[in-house]
């Protein structure tokens, strides 16, 4: 209980800071919207093409937007040496990490919630055909992006080229998660509920989230203290 309260305190702090400065939020959201807009100019999205590319395009946008957002997660703690003060506090490193991941998760979900209808308008895509399944896929895949991104944000926080390093490290790690999310989203946009082989992708997302959450929680103290 104390662990969860500590994690929530850290998450609240991050959310309050971000809503006040809107640094990462504005950059990430505008970047996502600009990519969606530019892609819609790049080709004339017919119904058939939209059906084929919807999953891939949407998750690439979410992944790019996520990298911008997640870069700031631990970097914001460098100002005034706040990271040192947090690490020295009695809050376990795992609670600190999960608090930060939770704040990132909420912010990224917010960005996705704005991008999804915009995607529908620009690409004439009906994303409401399987709303429950789409919500499940978004919740699972976004947690995967968040957990990996937050962990690598901690790992690269002291690197001078962290803005470059984070995407270079995160995207290869995210391949299984993004593949599953793209496959499922493409099918869901076409109105097909996951069944048979498609359910294996859902199981992969669940497994990915569990494995990387457990690994991150176990390793974060070593990452932060060395």
């Amino acid at each position: 209980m104390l662990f969860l309260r500590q994690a929530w305190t850290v998450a609240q702090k991050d959310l309050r800071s971000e809503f006040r400065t809107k640094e990462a939020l504005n950059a990430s959201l505008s970047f996502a919207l600009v990519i969606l807009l530019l892609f819609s100019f790049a080709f004339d999205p017919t119904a058939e093409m939209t059906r084929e590319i919807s999953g891939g395009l949407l998750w690439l946008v979410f992944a790019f937007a996520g990298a911008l957002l997640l870069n700031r997660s631990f970097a914001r703690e460098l100002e005034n040496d706040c990271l040192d003060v947090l690490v020295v506090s009695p809050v376990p490193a795992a609670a600190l990490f999960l608090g930060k991941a939770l704040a990132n998760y909420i912010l990224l979900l917010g960005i996705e919630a704005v991008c999804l209808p915009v995607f529908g308008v620009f690409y004439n895509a009906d994303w409401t055909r399987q709303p429950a399944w789409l919500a499940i896929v978004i919740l699972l895949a976004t947690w995967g992006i968040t957990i990996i991104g937050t962990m690598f944000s901690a790992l690269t926080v002291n690197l001078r080229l962290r803005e470059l390093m984070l995407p270079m490290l995160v995207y290869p790690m995210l391949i299984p998660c993004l593949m599953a999310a793209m496959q499922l989203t493409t099918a869901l946009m076409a109105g097909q509920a996951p069944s048979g082989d498609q359910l294996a992708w859902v199981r992969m997302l669940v497994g990915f989230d569990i494995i990387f959450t457990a690994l991150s929680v176990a390793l974060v103290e070593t990452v932060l203290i060395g």
Partner: protein
Amino acid sequence: MTALSVENVWKYYGDFPALRGISFEARQGACVALLGRNGAGKTTLLRILAGLSRPTRGSVRVFGRDCLDAEVRRQTGLIGHGIGIYDELSAYENLRLFAALYGVKDPRRAAMEWLERTGLERVRDGLVREFSRGMRQRLAVARAFLHRPSLLLLDEPFTALDDRAIALLQGLLKESLAGGATVVMSTHQLREALELATHVALIVKGRLAHAGERTAEMLEDPGWLYRTYGEA
């Protein structure tokens, strides 16, 4: 009672030994002034004591426990090189946050009490980024003391402080020492540090050159220690 025990601590950065077999003890209620030239290893040692870095060899025990233990952390207060407060939060939000993180019973009350003690109650809702340097420093002092730590680790605490913040910090340190807290502070401001110190530890190139009680001779002539035990 021994509050802090440092045993044969070595720290390497690559091949470079920043600390070479440091050992000393501090009893409860002691104030240890950690002295040494720039690059001697004072900050490295303080970071290890605070649990921010692990020693390559050797061990640190605080109140008989590992310094990474959550209970030890709850009893430790740190003032490092940075002020350790969030610019985009208000003074009150900062103190309430740290009170909550340290498990202080009533974080709101503790935050208000320390805002009053540091003379910041009138600007409680002001964002820290709008504060003057002196106000930020006083808030940082409040942040380090609000959970009433039994061990205070201070890295150059008097550097860049204004008169008001120095007086506040000295007052709080005296109060904490009278209450039985242990203080370890690294500093170049010998006079301020030696006035408070009960013990001194001089580090020269990562080695402990001298550790012992602070004598009247040191107080009269702060440079004596460096001339006697330091580098030529």
